[in-house]
C-alpha cells in the first residue's frame, strides 16, 4: 500500500487582496521514486493551479527550487518524499523577499550581492584576440572550479543565524565567492581591496563560525575552509591596517 502524504504548504499571494498568510494542507498518494518536483506539479495541475513555486532545471543544477522542507532549507527537486514521514511541511526560504507561496526573490538578492562584491575579474590587461591564452596549472583551475560550483540557491543564507538577524550580512555564499576571486590570478585586485569589501562586521568578522552553512550547502562546497581562510587572511590585514592607522595618527 502506498502512503497518503499530508503536504502542508505556506500560502500567501500579496497580489490578491483576499489572500492571508496561512498553511494549507494537501493530500497526495505517494508513487515510487516521488520527489517534490513531481509532487508539487501534480498538486498544481490536479488540485490547485494557484499554487506558486519555482523549478527550472529539475536536476539540482540551477538553484531555483530551494525551500524549507520540514525545517531545513534544501533543493526541492532532489528531495525524495520517501526520506520523509507522512507529513511534509513546506515554507518559503527566509531572508529573501516573498513573491508568493513558496517563491522568493533570490534573483535581486544575488544581483545586489554580486554588484557589492564586484564579483568579476578585475584587470587592466586588454584582451588580445591574436594571442594564445595565458597558461594556468590544471590543479589551480580545478580549485577555482570547486568554488565556482555554487548555484546561488540561497540555502546557506536561510540557514545562517547571522544573516537572519542582520539583513546586510554577506553570508557564506558571498565569502566563498570572494575566496574564488582571491584564488584566481587573473583577478588583479589587491588584498586591501578585498579587505574593503569583506573586512567588516557585515563580512567575515560578522560570521560566528557555527557552520550551519556548510552542513546545508547542496553542492557540498567546502565553506568551512573558505571562511577559516578568509578569517585568517583578513584578520592579519585588519591588524596591519590598525597598526598603519596608529602610526599615521
Amino acid at each position, binding site marked *: 500500500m502506498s502512503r497518503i502524504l499530508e503536504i502542508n504548504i505556506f500560502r500567501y499571494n500579496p497580489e490578491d487582496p483576499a489572500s492571508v498568510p496561512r498553511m494549507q494542507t494537501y493530500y497526495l498518494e505517494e508513487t515510487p521514486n516521488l520527489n517534490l518536483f513531481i509532487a508539487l506539479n501534480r498538486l498544481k495541475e490536479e488540485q490547485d493551479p494557484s499554487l506558486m513555486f519555482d523549478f527550472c532545471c529539475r536536476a539540482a543544477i540551477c538553484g531555483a527550487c530551494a525551500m524549507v522542507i520540514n525545517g531545513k532549507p534544501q533543493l526541492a527537486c532532489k528531495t525524495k518524499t520517501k526520506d520523509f514521514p507522512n507529513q511534509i511541511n513546506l515554507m518559503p526560504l527566509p531572508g529573501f523577499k516573498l513573491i*508568493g507561496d513558496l517563491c522568493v526573490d533570490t534573483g535581486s538578492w544575488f544581483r545586489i550581492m554580486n554588484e557589492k562584491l564586484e564579483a568579476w575579474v578585475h584587470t587592466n590587461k586588454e584582451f588580445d584576440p591574436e594571442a594564445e591564452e595565458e597558461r594556468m596549472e590544471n590543479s589551480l583551475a580545478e580549485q577555482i572550479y570547486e568554488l565556482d560550483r555554487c548555484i546561488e540557491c540561497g540555502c546557506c543564507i536561510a540557514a545562517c543565524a547571522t544573516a537572519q538577524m542582520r539583513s546586510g550580512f554577506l553570508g557564506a555564499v558571498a565569502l566563498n565567492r570572494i575566496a574564488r576571486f582571491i584564488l584566481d590570478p587573473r583577478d588583479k585586485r589587491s588584498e586591501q581591496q578585498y579587505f574593503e569589501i569583506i573586512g567588516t562586521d557585515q563580512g567575515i568578522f560578522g560570521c560566528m563560525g557555527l557552520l550551519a552553512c556548510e552542513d546545508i550547502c547542496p553542492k557540498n562546497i567546502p565553506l568551512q575552509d573558505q571562511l577559516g581562510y578568509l578569517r585568517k587572511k583578513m584578520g592579519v590585514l585588519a591588524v596591519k591596517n590598525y597598526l598603519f592607522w596608529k602610526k599615521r595618527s
Partner: protein
Amino acid sequence: MEIIYSDLLCIGAGLAGERVAIEVAQNGFKVVCLSLVPARRSHSSAAQGGMQAALGNCIKGEGDNPDIHFEDTVKGSDWGCDQEVAKLFAHTAPIAIRQLAYWGVPWNRVVSGRSFYYKGGKRFEKIERIEKHGLITARDFGGTAKWRACYCSDGTGHSLLYTIDSVAISKGVLVHDRSEAISLIQDGENCLGAVVRCLRTGKLRVYLAKATLIATGGFGRIYRASTNAIINEGGGLIIALETGLVPLGNMEAVQFHPTGIVPGDILVTEGCRGDGGVLLDINKYRFMPDYEPEKAELASRDVVARRMVEHMRKGFGVKSPYGEHLWLDIRHLGKEHITTKLREVYDICLNFLGINPVEELIPVRPTQHYSMGGIKTNVYGEAYGLKGLFAAGEAACWDMHGFNRLGGNSLAETIVAGMIVGKRIVEFLQEREVNFSLKLVELELKKQQEKINKLIFGKGRENVYKVRNAMQDILMDYVGIFRNEKDLQLAVDNLQELLERSKQIKLRSNGLGANSELSLALKIEGMVKLALCVAYGALQRKESRGAHTREDYPYRNDRDWWVRTLAYFKEKDSLPTLEYEPATKKIFLPPGKRGYGGTKIVPYDYPKDAPLPEL
C-alpha cells in the same frame, strides 16, 4: 502604462542573450535583458560536457584547426547547415574560448606527461607535450575528428554563464528577471519592442527599443520527455511566429540525445561516452560497434540515438516500469575520474536514480534534447521579416547545425553568435532612428490585456494542463526519432484539433499575481503552433537527413531536399505556410558521405526527372 526604453531589448539572459548584451553595452548603448528566471538559472547553466573550439592543445587534438572543425560541423549537420555561417563560426570559436578564459572561466588545462584514457572500454596511454602544459585542454565528443570540447569538469555551462553574467554586471547590463515577453510590438516592417508580463506581480509592462533580440533558448518542453529545463517552452519563437511575418527555419530538425536517464529524462553528458563510457543492452553486450564499426558510441547523436532505438526494437532493450531503456556503463573510468571530471553525472545518478555509477549501470534512452530549428536569421543574426529584430543562440536558426548539432557546438554557438550578432547590432544602432507610435503600443497592450481577461473571465472550458499534455503526447508518439507518413499525418490532424481547443482555455485559479497557470495559458496556443511547425514540416520533408528520419523516405535526397524549411503562421490559419530556401548559398564542402550512420544518398546532380534509386 509603464514604458521602459532602451537601445537594445534582449529577450533572454542565457549565454547568447548576455553575450550579445555585453558587446552592445560596451559600445555605450543601454541594454535591458529579460529573463523568466534569474539570469544565472537560465538553461545554459545546465550544459555539462563542453564547448567546441579548434585549439589543438591536447595531444589528441594535435593538428586541429578551424577548417577541420568546419568540416565536422557540416558533416554533423548532414549538409543541412549554412556553410558560410559554419565557417565563420569555426574560425571565431578559438577567440571566443580565449576571451572566456580572459574573463575568468576556469577551463581545464593540459597537464604534460603520461596519462591514460579510455576508448570503447579499453585503456590507452597518451603523452601530453611539455610545450602545451597549462594551455586549455579538450575532451572527445561525438562526430568529431579531434578532441575539441573544452570543458570545466562537467559544469561547463554553469561556469560559462556565471562568468558571462559577471561581465554583464560589470558592464552595467540590466537584467529584469521574472519578466516574460508575451508579444512583440511591430508595425509590419519594424520591430519596436515587446509587451511583457511581470512574473512577480502579474502586471503588464511595455519595453520599447531600437533593436530587439530574441535569445530565449530551446523549446524542448513541447515534448513530454525532454532534457530541457521546464522553462524551455519556446516563448521567444512563439512571439516571433505570431507576427505572421517572421519565419521559423527547419522546425522539423529536433535532436534526441542518446543518454537521458530513465526515469526522469535528466541528461547525462556526452562526455561520459567521450571519456570512454559504452552502451550495453539487456545482455550487457556492447552493441554499438556492430552498427558503427568506426565511431561506435561516438558517432553523431542522431546516429547513436537511431541505432539505440533500432536495437531496442530488435528486442534487446531492458524492460522497466518506465518503459524500455539501455545501459550506459562508465564503471571502468574509475572513482577518481567519475567523482571529479564527471561529478554532475555522479550527483545526478545518486540524487535522481539512487544508484552509484562507479559500481552500477546507468539506465538511459534517447530523449528530446535540442532544437536545431528556430527564428531564421541571416549570417549577422538579423531575423527574416522584421527590421530591428535579431535572434541568437538556440532560439535562432542561424543555421550552423542543419539537421544535427554536434555536442559542444551549441555552447560555442551562443558565444560566437553573441559576438557576431552583437557587433551587427552595434552598427545597426549607430544608424537607427525610430519613432515609437504610442497608438500602436496601446493597441498591442490592449490586445494582450483582453487575452488575459478572456482567460480569466471568458466562457472557455478547456483545462490548460490537459491541452499541454495532449500536445506533448502527440509529439512523443508520432513525431519522434523514426517518422513516417501515417504517423505524421495523424499528428498534424490531432494538433490542428488541439489548436482549436487551445483557444478555449479557461483558468481554474484567479490568475492574480505571479500565477503560473496564466503564464502557460498565455502561450499554449503558440506552443501548439510550434508543434504544428515541427509535425507539418516533418510530414512535408520527404527524405531522411540528420535527426529527421523518414522510414518511408530513407534517402538523404540532395537533389530535391537540400533546402531549409521556412514556416510562417498566418493569424487565422490552422496550419503553417511552408516555403523553402537553399540550405546554403556558398558551398565550400560539396555534399558527400558523413563517415558514419550509413545514410543512402541521392546526389544533388542526380538527373532531374529520373526516378529515385530502388531501395
